[in-house]
């Protein structure tokens, strides 16, 4: 009798828009075609935040660009500040003083820890573990207070890492305060490691990305490391002074949402190690190159071109800058890691999942729509 019922007329196809007015999706929408409970096709709908950043940078001098470059991705502003400053430094041929190099590394690693805390908080909220959300945003405020003491702004540092070094030196009490904040972050990681059975059941075995697919679709960063490839731009294509520090690269083989979540926690532990080593070895001296110490109205950039790669918290970032001798850059191309994660990788992973698993897959990729639209 059951067989007879099952072969009756089936009319269970419909369209659903998981979109931008939904409180659980950010400024980005996905059009889903669903058959019953299973997603058969997904198409991404970007463009809610498109400002045309690359051409805006052609109208501004490098000092003005240093202030605007931290708005490329709001969740990790100091890392994008750093990559723009490195591009201008290499074009102008400046060698920055030793103390500035250590300060840049410390601020970039603090920003990476802060971004992973947001990832943990939002992923827990999407899968129903609401306590994790409150723990994460509570501990994140310690780091924002540190940023306010050193750079002057809680979220946006207003061009602290500028071409030529950094704008001003650490205050005298900075070292003790940074060490105290790192103890608090250690406490938070121990709280996070308590295995919540609901989170494990919702995230294990869901959204599996194999290694061959990951390379073909262009994934980089933690998403690629969770699929089995041991690579990190800080070790392969060394920039700044990362070759002087001793840290590991966490790798996992399964490629599902739970593996990506565990890699995020391991990366925070490695960043804490780097900051402690940098604080011990920091020399004394100037923090900005003497030719750029007094801000001038326009500085000419020598002609040439350069491509810089950095490891931001979400993956591999790149800036390609071309200059023809004026005081404004001729062309700036920004390559963000989220452009690849949100369109090809998400459309591939959402095929074949259940509706109830869509938030877990979506938030485990650590997306930031501002980075994709620019």
């Amino acid at each position: 009798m059951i067989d007879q019922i099952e072969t009756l007329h089936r009319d269970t196809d419909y369209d659903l828009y998981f979109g931008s007015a939904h409180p659980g999706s950010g400024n980005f929408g996905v059009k889903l075609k669903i058959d019953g409970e299973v997603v058969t096709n997904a198409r991404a709908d970007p463009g809610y935040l498109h400002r045309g950043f690359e051409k805006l940078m052609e109208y501004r001098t490098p000092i003005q660009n240093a202030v605007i470059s931290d708005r490329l991705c709001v969740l990790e502003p100091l890392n994008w500040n750093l990559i723009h400053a490195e591009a201008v430094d290499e074009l102008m041929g400046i060698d920055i003083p030793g103390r500035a190099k250590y300060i840049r590394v410390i601020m970039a690693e603090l920003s990476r820890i802060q971004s992973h805390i947001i990832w943990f908080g939002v992923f827990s909220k999407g899968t129903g573990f609401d306590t994790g959300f409150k723990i994460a945003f509570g501990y994140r405020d310690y780091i924002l207070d540190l940023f306010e003491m050193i750079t002057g702004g809680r979220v946006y540092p207003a061009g602290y890492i500028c071409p030529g070094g950094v704008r001003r030196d650490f205050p005298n009490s900075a070292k003790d305060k940074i060490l105290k904040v790192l103890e608090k972050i250690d406490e938070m990681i121990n709280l996070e490691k308590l295995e919540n059975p609901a989170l494990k059941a919702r995230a294990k075995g869901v959204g599996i990305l194999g290694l061959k697919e990951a390379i073909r679709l262009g994934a980089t960063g933690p998403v690629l490391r969770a699929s089995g490839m041991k690579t990190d731009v800080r070790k392969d294509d060394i920039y700044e002074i990362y070759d002087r520090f001793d840290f590991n690269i966490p790798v996992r083989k399964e490629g599902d949402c739970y593996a990506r979540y565990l890699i995020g926690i391991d990366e925070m532990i490695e960043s804490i190690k780097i900051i402690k080593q940098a604080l011990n070895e920091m020399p004394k001296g100037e923090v900005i190159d003497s030719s750029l110490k007094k801000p001038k109205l326009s500085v000419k950039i020598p002609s040439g071109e350069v491509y810089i790669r950095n490891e931001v918290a979400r993956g591999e970032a790149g800036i390609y800058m071309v200059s023809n001798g004026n005081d404004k850059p001729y062309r700036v191309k920004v390559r963000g890691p989220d452009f690849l994660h949100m369109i090809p990788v998400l459309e591939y992973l959402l095929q074949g999942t259940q509706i109830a698993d869509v938030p877990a897959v979506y938030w485990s990729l650590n997306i930031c729509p501002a980075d994709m639209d620019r």
Partner: protein
Amino acid sequence: MIKKETELLNEMKSKYNFEGKIKRKRRISISIDRNNLSKFLHELKNRGFIHLSSISVTDWLDEGNYEITYHLWSYDDKILLTVKTKISRDKPNIQSVTSIWEENAQIHERELHELYGVKFKNNTDLSPLFLEDWRGPPPFRKDFNWREYVKENYYDKNNKRETVYYD
């Protein structure tokens, strides 16, 4: 110090005709004619450059052409190779590289089609990505002045608080 880069450059120079330069450790830059481009890129992928980092277009208004740049990274050799070629600015057509790097290349080419107007042959999906109902010229070209466009479309001449922008 730059042994690997020199070996790679010499090996490629014996088979193809291009201008190449080693800029520093791990950075090589190559300029090649557009007719030999597809074969060259095919061979580079088989040699280990499996990651396409980005594709970019530079608009040289004085010379009248677009310069397309491909940035390739190899995980085994740890070298970044930049391949450049020039196409005309009034009718920009070029062969797509989706047969080599598949979805990774397709999304980059879709963005460049919308912002610069470049037509890529054999790319199956070139629909608009960021803009909805846009009827103007491709926005990132050098002859489209944004400050004039904003003054015409977003500010109001009759509003007395905005007379500052009009004198």
